[in-house]
């Protein structure tokens, strides 16, 4: 069947099996491998993407169900001005180690900041509680989101890191 959706601002149309999961549509049909998967039961949240602005577990949604909707993945986080403050925050506060849960965590953080630009620690912890990180123990993820909240206009590239 044919599905059409907007992914990171661009409309895409593809022929897919009706049973294809959104995570596989993104990873395999579109080659956007920044979205990961870590379980089959919608418990781990490594597959989180934004659908119409809300965090959704893409392993538990069909590509077909997403047709006509707007999807944002980690590949669409950085804008023309550079990295999203959330991405900078994760680098500044060591919010990632192996990087596997990171795209989902950052997208949830972005959605949170869009509706609550100044979330406290408890709010951040609650927002990411559907996603598991096995490396960081979460405190640095919380700090990363706070960093982004405190640097909303930070639109630098990551030159500080690589220059």
């Amino acid at each position, binding site marked *: 069947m044919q599905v059409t959706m907007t992914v990171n601002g661009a409309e895409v149309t593809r022929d897919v099996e009706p049973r294809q999961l959104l995570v596989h549509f993104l990873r395999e049909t579109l080659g956007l491998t920044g979205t990961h998967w870590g379980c089959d039961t919608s418990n781990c949240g490594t597959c989180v993407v934004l659908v119409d602005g809300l965090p959704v577990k893409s392993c538990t949604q069909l590509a077909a169900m997403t047709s006509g909707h707007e999807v944002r993945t980690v590949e669409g986080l950085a804008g023309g001005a550079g990295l999203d403050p959330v991405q900078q925050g994760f680098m500044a506060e060591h919010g990632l*180690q192996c990087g596997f849960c990171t795209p989902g965590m950052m997208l949830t953080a972005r959605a949170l900041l869009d509706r609550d630009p100044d979330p406290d620690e408890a709010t951040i912890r609650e927002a*990411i509680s559907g996603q598991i*990180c096995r490396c960081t123990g979460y405190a640095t993820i919380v700090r990363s989101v706070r960093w982004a909240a405190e640097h909303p206009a930070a639109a630098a590239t990551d030159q500080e890191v690589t220059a």
Partner: protein
Amino acid sequence: MTAVQERSPMPQEREANPAMDAPDRPIGYGRVQRKEDPRFVRGKGRYLDDIVLPGMLHGAILRSPMAHARIVSIDTTEALAHPKVHAVVTGKDLEGLNLAWAPTLSADVQAVLATDKVRFQGQEVAFVVAEDRYSARDALELIDVEYEDLPPVVDVRRALDADAPVIRDDLEGRTDNHIFDWEAGDAAETEVVFARADVVVSEEVVYPRVHPAPMETCGAIADYEPVEGRLTLYETSQAPHAHRTLFAMVAGIPEHKIRVVSPDIGGGFGNKVGIYPGYILAVVGSIVTGKPVKWVEDRSENLMSTSFARDYIMRGEVAATREGKILAVRTKVLADHGAFNATAQPTKYPAGFFSIFTGSYDLQAAHCSVTGVYTNKAPGGVAYACSFRVTEAVYLVERMVDVLAAELGMDPAELRLRNFIKPEQFPYKNKTGWEYDSGDYEPALRMAMEQIGYDELRREQAEKRGRGELMGIGVSFFTETVGAGPRKHMDIVGLGMADGAEVRVHPTGKAVVRLSVQTQGQGHETTFAQILAEELGIPPEDVDVVHGDTDQTPFGLGTYGSRSTPVSGGAVALAARKVKDKARLIAAAMLETRPEDLEWEKGRWSVKGDPSAGKTMAEIALGAHGTVELPEGVDGNLDAEVTYDPPNLTFPFGAYICVVDVDPGTGKVHVRRFVAVDDCGTRINPMIVEGQIHGGLADGVGMALMEFIGFDEQGNCLGGSFMDYLIPTAMEVPDWETGYTVTPSPHHPIGAKGIGESATVGSPPAVVNAVVDALAPFGIRHMDMPCTPARVWEAMQGRPTPPI
């Protein structure tokens, strides 16, 4: 020793982040952002399942639904008829290739695909190769396997019963499920000390089966090129070189024709040390079909079949004087190794480094005996950041010290302070043969107590107990033994536990470091660049760190047991020093002076007494590759290579204190605070060090409160998905509070000890001790993990039960 206390401030409380703002980032040790992060935050990491090769097929494994059953027949006709299926492989097919059984890392064999019978639920029975992963899954349903039920051995305590079914009847002459008996220490001497002790406490302490469960499951892509007979194997591997050698041994493909590539790894924690049947099957699939074959396990396969951790039933005993002097510790352990003995540990250590159960205390005697047995469960045992079973050892001794404190009516922190090995006793030879390299324990525990406000918490606890509220304070103090070898004592399947590093300084002064160890998130690309930076004065951003590709890196045994910094870190530092020494010779030639007239300041050799006359590393590198007339015996490059064989292990330590509140009505445990003071010797990048600690602390909360792989009486795995194998979320863990002391390793080139597993080792007893402390009003002295609401409530009713 230096000591620093940190409250892990939120960013708004902290000064500007120097790594973001300061132009002069450290050239060497210090907080610096990770070099690997820019690709990860963009979603540009390259994990195994991200790799797509032209013409690649997909494999899927049919697994046993039963724990113990004879295979009567396997019918693959229908699966083979599926239009998208390219091959179906069974154990019979593998027998023809002599690949049905593969050697394990512990001198046993493991079935790649079951031939005679299945021995655990989830065991590999058949392998399908299809055009896409959906079709491969569909085809699994088309395979018809007839099983004949056999009684399973599930209860490890009954595995050695005379009438227990024999699991390993594939092994000739096998009449029972016994694997090994192993002991350390002096039993007779220990008995003498116990016999004259004032006080002896005894407790059965269970460390149940848990799983490392990295967020990325295990997988492989095999690409066999038949004309030249070359195999390229992409794998989720913590030890690519060891895997290559083992593949050469197992598959009969010459080692020089195998290239193992371990790409970005989504967490390992020991789960990605072993070679699993799926990896071998991907290779078989590629040979059979002539195309690349990808196999990636799903989460249930990961939890049910790959390397579990722990599963130790430990009878612990401590002998002490009434005044609280600990005299001796002994323990008898029953170790469940599952259906195949596939633990990954040095050959001479069938119980890993469990004999460090003497802990941080100055004892007169100690003894342990460990019996390993087969059961109808998944194989494994050494994984999940355990430092080769130091987790079990530390949990035992730290739990038992608290039991003793309760018996003596003594504060558990005070009891520990009285019994520590004293700083002047280092290097300290313990009663089971380890030589602790360095330590200064009391300041670490005092710092943790001060940071958490120990005395005030005890006052609060007393007050709350008066009101019927349940609050607990748990102390643990651990000493780890990490960084294996030395190679003469430690090998895995005959491969000595050493690691290599190659350093090459390019003509423009930029450098590359090639490593045999493999990061799974630990930040090797940054840490190792900083080690080189510290040694040679080349900024970390000018150093490329290459790892995870056997074609590009020197041989070594890989990353597990907190070995990367202790072993490869030593290799990099020594290789850098070779480069520095060579640079001196070249600089002298360039400056037309004698090498001994030069002195080193970071990044530059200059003439003693005339600092303006000198050559930077970049200038020297260009000189080395240029036209400078080099001294005799000096090659025209600035490269060096070292294989580091550590003279001893390193012994990181730490003091952890946890505060919990228990809901008296529901038994629900809330971790309120956790202070961790760690000493890992030299700290290369404090940000990364702290990150390693944080992650391990969350592991400890997970194991103490919820993580558990259980089985029912039929041997069905009860922890086979993330719906049942529970891992803490951000809601179950507190904001970690950390501090540190620095006691460098005297024998290590840079004094570093390794930090990857300290917190996973040290934190479970702190949490459990806190829970048991909270339950003291109920007369509880011990309860086993996991401290779930139901199990805590049962303990409150006076019937704490072992989880197995």
